[in-house]
């Protein structure tokens, strides 16, 4: 070849090579993915013939791209088509994604091989040759880092010949798409911080299965975390937490439901049956939003904002002292104090015992508080009284009080229950004895709340940890104070009546408040778990009483004790086996009618929606945050709130009465209490039209207080 022709040959080769490099091809490869533009045209390219295009992505191991709702982070893959004139292209038919957790966050996307197909409608019919299809695709591919990538693709589709080389791939992709769910009714309702989904008409094979929920719209629900789901017949209910920073308020929420072993799933459309609360309540909004900063508190309890640490400590001290008068604590304490009369001369011993008791009480309160704060710091929705929201704890407390009562009545003596060495050890270490009595006193005090505790405890959990623990320690100090005073001032001890037979009678009489507390705890358990759990608990208590008598009775001999003891143990085991399931499991779902009717006193169940709707109508709202295990709440319900005058007043002002029942754990109510700067019940909140925020009434309600609070509200016509 001559030199010139070689030169032109190289030039021509370079030009062709250059052009080939510049022109997009069907494949784009990166270190993370291999992406390819593929087509499926089994009958050639013509109007009316099926035509599918798609982007095939092969991910390197552990790399993933995202679904149309990428989840907490990420971006969905986008496709931009350049097609011959007049051609129409549909939207991406996304296959059902998988959940991709990353730390505390959740994404929805794909790994491995993925095809994102689109349906295409061609127009016109080119006689021969081929048509060119171009695509600009962008995707975000992530593993532990994210890389935004993109590519330009181009393929030529022969008009006459079939393009079916990827038929299998397109078929697999179609099978991996969620099917449309004809015949299902799906609805969603906002309840506090949750979205309650109800779907009926799902395939019968799905009933009772665990379903996964994928929302197609971002910015509505929390993606991480498992929703609580349940089946009732053929209706599936799920409670999904709403996004704390929700940015969307759709009327329709499309979603995909997947069951194990059936990858494609169903696509459902959830229709919203309630209004969305304002996504971001702000100070300038015309309606007083629930989360407003100003919370006015009635005069009796000091304004929460102004309550200093000193104030909280003082209230805690008073509250603790008042706890001694509660039926839970009074018997234990009074018997203990009376015992001083027997040891009035042993000043030092008494004083040490008093100190040990105080230490036991304070340490127990601090330990309970530390547990509460630790759980709250970990993210739990808990408030004071949280221990009583759990049926097993209520049952255990009932057991404790029953045993104490039986011991006081004389059914058994613990001295006979425990080996002699223990009794001797107890006598040798009276300080340890007193310390344990302190711990026990806190355990029995927990079901009772006293006035002043609500405000100081609500403030305490918002304080820095050491200050909060100090408030609880002061509460313990207040509770131990009477005992400490008597043990430290022998004059007080000597003022107590001389010991005598009356002490035995007194001891027996004190058993009855204990049993009364058991009755109340059994009622609380009944509220939480139903009548079956009540029967189970009562059977358990009976078996325990029998066992305690068998092992600890004064009059039985060794053989009697062994025989009856074995029998009693058998009975106890049988009762446990029968009672435990009803105590532990959630009660059967109560069928809820569509529209909830007010109860016989005119109270409706509380929900944030109801409050806002009423306020929008200019109506006054009175919310009673209560729980079955809260003594003060029940007291108010039976006295002040049951008064004819109060009922008439509330009716005259057309006040909407809402009851927030916190007997069982309820995150929505806990969150609302937190917003009102309280951690326990009772809380009485009055929302008057025109006021910036709710007015919190005193924990022990009085008719006069309700009258004055409502005085500003006009009578309804």
């Amino acid at each position: 070849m001559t030199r010139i022709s070689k030169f032109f040959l190289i030039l021509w080769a370079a030009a062709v090579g250059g052009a080939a490099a510049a022109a997009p091809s069907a494949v784009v490869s990166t270190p993370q993915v291999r992406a390819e533009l593929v087509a499926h045209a089994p009958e050639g390219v013509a109007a009316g013939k099926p035509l599918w295009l798609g982007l095939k992505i092969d991910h390197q191991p552990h790399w993933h791209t995202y679904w149309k709702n990428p989840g907490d982070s990420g971006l969905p893959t986008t496709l931009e088509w350049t097609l011959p004139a007049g051609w129409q292209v549909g939207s991406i038919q996304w296959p059902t994604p998988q959940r991709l957790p990353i730390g505390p966050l959740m994404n929805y996307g794909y790994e491995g091989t993925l095809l994102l197909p689109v349906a295409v409608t061609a127009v016109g019919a080119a006689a021969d040759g081929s048509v060119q299809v171009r695509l600009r695709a962008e995707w975000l591919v992530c593993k532990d880092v994210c890389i935004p990538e993109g590519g330009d693709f181009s393929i030529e589709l022969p008009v006459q010949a079939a393009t079916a080389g990827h038929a299998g791939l397109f078929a697999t992709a179609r099978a991996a798409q969620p099917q449309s769910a004809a015949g299902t009714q799906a609805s969603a309702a906002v309840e506090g911080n949750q979205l309650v989904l109800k779907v009926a008409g799902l395939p019968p094979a799905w009933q009772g299965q665990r379903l996964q929920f994928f929302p197609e719209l971002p910015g509505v629900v929390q993606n991480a975390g498992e929703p609580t789901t349940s089946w009732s017949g053929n209706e599936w209910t799920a409670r999904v937490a709403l996004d704390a920073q929700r940015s969307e308020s759709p009327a329709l929420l499309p979603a995909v439901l997947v069951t194990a072993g059936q990858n494609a799933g169903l696509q459902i459309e959830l229709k919203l049956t309630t209004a969305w609360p304002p996504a971001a309540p702000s100070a300038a909004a015309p309606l007083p939003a629930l989360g407003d900063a100003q919370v006015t508190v009635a005069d009796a309890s000091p304004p929460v904002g102004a309550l200093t640490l000193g104030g909280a400590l003082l209230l805690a001290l008073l509250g603790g002292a008042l706890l001694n008068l509660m039926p839970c604590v009074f018997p234990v304490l009074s018997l203990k104090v009376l015992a001083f009369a027997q040891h009035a001369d042993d000043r030092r011993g008494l004083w040490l015992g008093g100190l040990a008791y105080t230490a036991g009480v304070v340490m127990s309160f601090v330990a309970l508080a530390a547990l509460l704060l630790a759980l709250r710091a970990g993210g739990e929705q808990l408030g004071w009284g949280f221990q009583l929201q759990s049926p097993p704890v209520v049952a255990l407390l009932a057991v404790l009080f029953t045993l104490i009562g039986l011991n006081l009545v004389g059914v058994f003596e613990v001295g006979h229950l425990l080996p002699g060495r223990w009794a001797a050890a107890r006598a040798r270490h009276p300080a340890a004895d007193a310390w344990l009595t302190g711990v026990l006193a806190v355990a029995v005090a927990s079901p009772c709340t006293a006035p002043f505790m609500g405000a100081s405890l609500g403030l305490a959990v918002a304080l820095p940890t050491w200050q909060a623990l100090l408030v609880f320690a002061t509460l313990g100090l207040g509770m131990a104070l009477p005992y400490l005073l008597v043990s430290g001032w022998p004059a007080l001890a000597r003022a107590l009546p001389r010991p005598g037979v009356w002490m035995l009678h007194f001891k027996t009489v004190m058993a009855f408040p204990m049993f009364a507390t058991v009755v109340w705890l059994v009622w609380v358990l009944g509220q939480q778990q139903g009548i079956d759990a009540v029967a189970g608990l009562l059977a358990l208590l009976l078996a325990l009483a029998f066992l305690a008598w068998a092992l600890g009775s004064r009059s039985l001999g060794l053989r009697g004790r062994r025989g009856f003891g074995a029998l009693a143990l058998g009975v106890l085991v049988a009762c446990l086996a029968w009672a435990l399931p009803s105590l532990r499991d959630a009660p059967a779902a109560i069928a809820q009618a569509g529209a909830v009717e007010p109860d016989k006193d005119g109270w409706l169940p509380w929900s944030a929606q109801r409050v806002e709707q009423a306020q929008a109508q200019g109506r006054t709202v009175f919310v009673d945050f209560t729980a079955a295990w809260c003594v003060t709440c029940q007291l108010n319900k039976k006295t002040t709130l049951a008064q004819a005058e109060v009922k008439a007043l509330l009716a005259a002002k057309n006040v909407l009465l809402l009851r927030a029942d916190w007997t069982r754990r309820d995150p929505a109510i806990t969150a609302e209490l937190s917003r009102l700067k309280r951690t326990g019940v009772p809380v009485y909140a009055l929302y008057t039209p025109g006021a910036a925020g709710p007015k919190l009434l005193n924990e022990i309600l009085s008719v006069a207080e309700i009258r004055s609070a409502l005085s500003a509200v006009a009578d309804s016509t």
Partner: protein
Amino acid sequence: MMSRRSLAVLIGPVLGAVLGTLATVSAWAASVGQAAPPFTVTDTSGKQVSLADFKGKHVVLEWVNPGCPFVVKHYSSSNMQATQKDATAKGVVWLAVNSTATEHRDFLAPAAMTQWMQGQKAAANATLMDTDGKVGRAYGARTTPHMYIINPAGTLVYAGGIDDKPTANAADIPGATNHVKVALQETLAGKAVTTASTKPYGCSVKYASGA
């Protein structure tokens, strides 16, 4: 009377164990309109910085990670720096927060982080090293960047993305609405923020696991 003490020995630990098993998990992230969660964390110069230090001022929190292409989009185009300067000139306190775990490959030690911020000519008042992720979790920070605005009363008035064009392409910035600039204009004028909650976009925050 003596007997109740021995009962306490038997029942006390059991009660304690039962109390300890009561938990049901429910996340508790900040929400717009509520009090912004307080925090105290060390910044890149080793100083302790608390939200309470800035009571009475507007505060902007910007979640940052130099290894994320979306953060790079806003810094290489100087969009983030311009937004920072715009804010700090009006007396707003701007805190950049890096919640990347130490074991993640995107982690930068405080000195390297300072160097990067200076190299980018960022106008943040401080860069907070939230390596255990406590602040991020308290605010529910999901992406980098993720923006929050707190008003002088301590209420969270904006949470969401920096702008409304969720891409990694810097060319999209001029045509996008900068949510932070708009929200700051409104809140500094004493008005309510109209778009207070938007969807944030970016890479996920690289939280430490097991926290």
